[in-house]
């Protein structure tokens, strides 16, 4: 060779690679303009059915809200539903996007190209989650704005506490996404599992109703799902003025679930990636 290799291994190089993956994913994402529609319209349309049902049951003047108020301590039922559906949308989109991130690369034909490089393999999953996270934070912000303007929802709580809960929820929400992504490399699809998880979140985590109205066994199932605590904590942080004390117990559970799901997501990734290399599944369409 007339020149030496330009590769310089090290932590900084891995960090640059991670950033390059995030930037690539963002560039590709914004070059498909349909994202604007999902960002602006979907957050309003999706909870509309629930909100109008609630309005029908409570009466236009809200006279039937007493039971709701007694159970939840809140009068803002539109905000209550909006927060639940926003968290559900977040988890749902993470399952479809992060959960299918590697599969998308596989279908594009670029997974092998990426795998040929000496970059830490998990960076590919972590890096492609960053633009997804940014777009989700934009979606949550746009949603909150739209509910405030269109439905007059008053987010009377603290913006900082809400952000804190969302930040703390990232490991749990994305850990589940990583676990899905790992399974999908070899299984090729996980639609049935995605439908199962989002269905479970919808029923057991109280996205539009308080858990107290559920039978005890369903409440018990809900306690094993991190989204239950995330939804409850975001509602407390965004809609009430009870401060940090009201979210602290939920925050603790969210962080525990986050650590567990991140560990499960990473372990599954390592096992499934090795299995894919042994079976040749990485390049299979």
């Amino acid at each position, binding site marked *: 060779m007339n020149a030496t290799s330009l590769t310089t291994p090290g932590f900084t190089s891995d960090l640059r*690679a991670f950033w390059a993956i995030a930037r690539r994913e963002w560039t590709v994402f914004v070059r498909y303009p349909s994202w604007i529609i999902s960002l602006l319209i979907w957050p309003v349309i999706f909870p509309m059915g629930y909100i109008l049902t609630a309005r029908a049951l409570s009466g236009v003047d809200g006279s039937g809200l007493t039971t709701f108020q007694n159970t939840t301590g809140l009068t803002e039922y539109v905000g209550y539903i909006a927060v639940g559906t926003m968290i559900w949308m977040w988890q749902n989109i993470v399952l479809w996007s992060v959960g299918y991130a590697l599969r998308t690369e596989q279908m594009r034909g670029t997974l092998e*190209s990426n795998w040929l490089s000496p970059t830490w393999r998990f960076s590919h999953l972590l890096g492609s989650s960053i633009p997804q996270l940014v777009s989700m934070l934009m979606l949550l912000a746009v949603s909150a704005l739209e509910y405030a303007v269109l439905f007059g929802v008053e987010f009377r709580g603290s913006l900082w506490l809400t952000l804190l809960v969302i930040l703390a929820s990232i490991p749990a929400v994305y850990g589940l996404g990583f676990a899905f992504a790992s399974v999908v490399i070899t299984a090729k699809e996980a639609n049935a599992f995605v439908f199962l998880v989002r269905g479970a979140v919808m029923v057991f985590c109280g996205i539009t109703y308080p858990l107290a109205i559920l039978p005890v066994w369903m409440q018990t199932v809900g306690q094993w799902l991190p989204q239950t605590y995330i939804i409850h904590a975001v509602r407390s942080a965004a809609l009430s003025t009870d401060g940090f004390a009201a979210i602290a117990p939920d925050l603790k559970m969210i962080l525990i679930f986050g650590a567990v799901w991140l560990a499960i997501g990473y372990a599954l990734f390592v096992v499934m990636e090795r299995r894919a290399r042994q079976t040749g599944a990485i390049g299979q369409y």
Partner: protein
Amino acid sequence: MDLQIRRGEIFGLLGPNGAGKSTTIRMLCTLLEPTSGTATVNGFDVVKQANEARRSLGTVLAGERSIYWKLTGRENLEYFAALYHIPAAAAKKRVDELIERMEIKDRANELVEKYSTGMRQRIAIAKALLARPPILLLDEPTLGLDPQAARNLRELIAQLKAEGHTILLTTHYMEEADQLSDRIGIIDAGKVIALDTPNNLKRRIDQKEVIRLEVSGWHESIAEKLKSIAGIENLLARQQGEDDLWEVNMQANDSRAALPRIVEHISGNGTRLANMNILKPSLEDVFIHLTGKALRD
């Protein structure tokens, strides 16, 4: 399979479909773990020292979807430079250098989806060259390229060898392997059945001749009759396009002795001999002699 590739050589790996060429490449570039045995790249074990092996390699896999179509050519190269851990300043210089070398400067800032197949392949090769790896694995690099683009690429491969790269090349084009390779390994069913220089391989059957016929109205019973002629072997018939015209190749120990009987078997029964040639054996004939199959089978 037991195979060693020497530093600085172009090694052509040939074999019929399913022989194990791509599997070998995939194992060497760490995409597939061997079920048994070991493989080393630049002295690094592809399983135990996978990252060191990856740093030694530039790989072009078959197919044109190994780069991002929604990124520009330049963005693709900058992205992969980061994945190959090339420091930012060196990466910028190297990307410019490769864009210039691959003659895509005018269109480097256009999305890859607007490129021709040849341009996409040039980006894929530039990607493989980014980190100046000592070893290049090229899996069917000229597949799908027009003749001019394929010729340019062959010139580039020869230049890369001159610059000191060790190159493992798989190809379906026998002339390409003959022209570029220092040594050729012919594999079939995962085993190396011949390994030598192109000239030495051709010498193995240089006492034979190849009879090439163009025949209309060909049918299998004629093949059986021709195979029964003494000294005739490795007969392969291939239909030419949509017409009822067949190219029939066979190897003969003594073509002069065999020709009258060949003509006799072909004449009549609606079969017509359109053309006939006696040729010196090519690398493809060596391949057919060894595997009993044409490379594109």
